[in-house]
């Protein structure tokens, strides 16, 4: 039996990541259709399409802002991650050794660094959140691939450490950016960007 309410996470993603000019009416339409008998799968598919279309539109209409958002997000996230893990690794390393310390602190700190960058980008680029997430993921993937290839060829790094890098760059960091973006969107109001709908 279908639950009464539409998926709240999907609704939250749509309202947080798509400009309010579009999201309010679109969410209303999706809820109306869901109440009319559409499935949860249909609802999620419509939300995913809306995020992709919104990112495409941001990229086409605001190229400079989109590039800036990706650069700001990646630079802040990578810098924060580097400094916090270096400091924490040295501190914790005194007690458990340097490499185990990195494992212990790297995952949560990379998540929180990525979340901080997501928050900063969401606040400074209210319309570019979907794009920064996608852009961040692409840039992080390319960098992760290059780093892994370098370590594999020149440093003979063990496979578990490379897997660790891949998990951080492909999963932990993008999730952090998304979480930070959602956090940054709560209370943020981009209504100031909307045209005066209904104005004479």
């Amino acid at each position: 039996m279908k639950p009464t309410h539409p998926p709240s996470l999907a609704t939250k993603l749509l309202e947080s990541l798509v400009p309010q000019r579009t999201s309010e009416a679109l969410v209303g339409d999706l809820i109306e259709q869901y109440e009319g008998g559409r499935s949860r799968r249909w609802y999620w598919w419509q939300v995913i399409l809306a995020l992709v279309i919104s990112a495409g539109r941001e990229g086409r209409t605001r190229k400079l802002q989109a590039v800036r958002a990706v650069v700001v997000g990646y630079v802040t996230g990578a810098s924060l991650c580097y400094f916090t893990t270096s400091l924490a690794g040295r501190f914790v390393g005194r007690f458990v050794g340097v490499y185990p310390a990195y494992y212990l602190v790297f995952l949560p700190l990379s998540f929180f660094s990525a979340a901080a960058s997501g928050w900063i980008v969401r606040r400074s680029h209210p319309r570019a959140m979907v794009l920064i997430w996608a852009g961040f993921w692409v840039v992080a993937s390319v960098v992760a691939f290059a780093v892994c290839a370098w370590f594999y060829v020149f440093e003979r790094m063990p496979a578990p450490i490379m897997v660790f890098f891949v998990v951080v760059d492909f999963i932990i960091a993008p999730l952090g950016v998304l979480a930070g973006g959602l956090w940054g969107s709560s209370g943020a109001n981009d209504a100031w960007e909307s045209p005066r709908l209904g104005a004479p």
Partner: protein
Amino acid sequence: MADHLKDFELMILLAVLRLDEDEAYGVPIATAIEQTTGRSVALASVYAALERLEDKGWVSSRMGESTAQRGGRAKRHFRVTAKGVRRVRQAKSALVKMWMGIRELQGGTT
């Protein structure tokens, strides 16, 4: 090209013109296109096209009342502006001119 009108945008303009102003919001517009073309249409693509058309000044929109059926969210009603109607007429005129005199398209239904 600033005044380029894509097929999908033309369909949306025609759907909005067909509907009463109170009924011209996302769901009925998408349904009208689905019924005409027989293919499913993403609501987000309808809004993306409507916003492009609004940026060109061919449609205008206003927010309606929020209702409980829609989780407290308002409808966004659209209407085609005079400039938009002129653009649709131009598109029709161009299409009809292109259509005329093509033997393969005369008669039959396919």
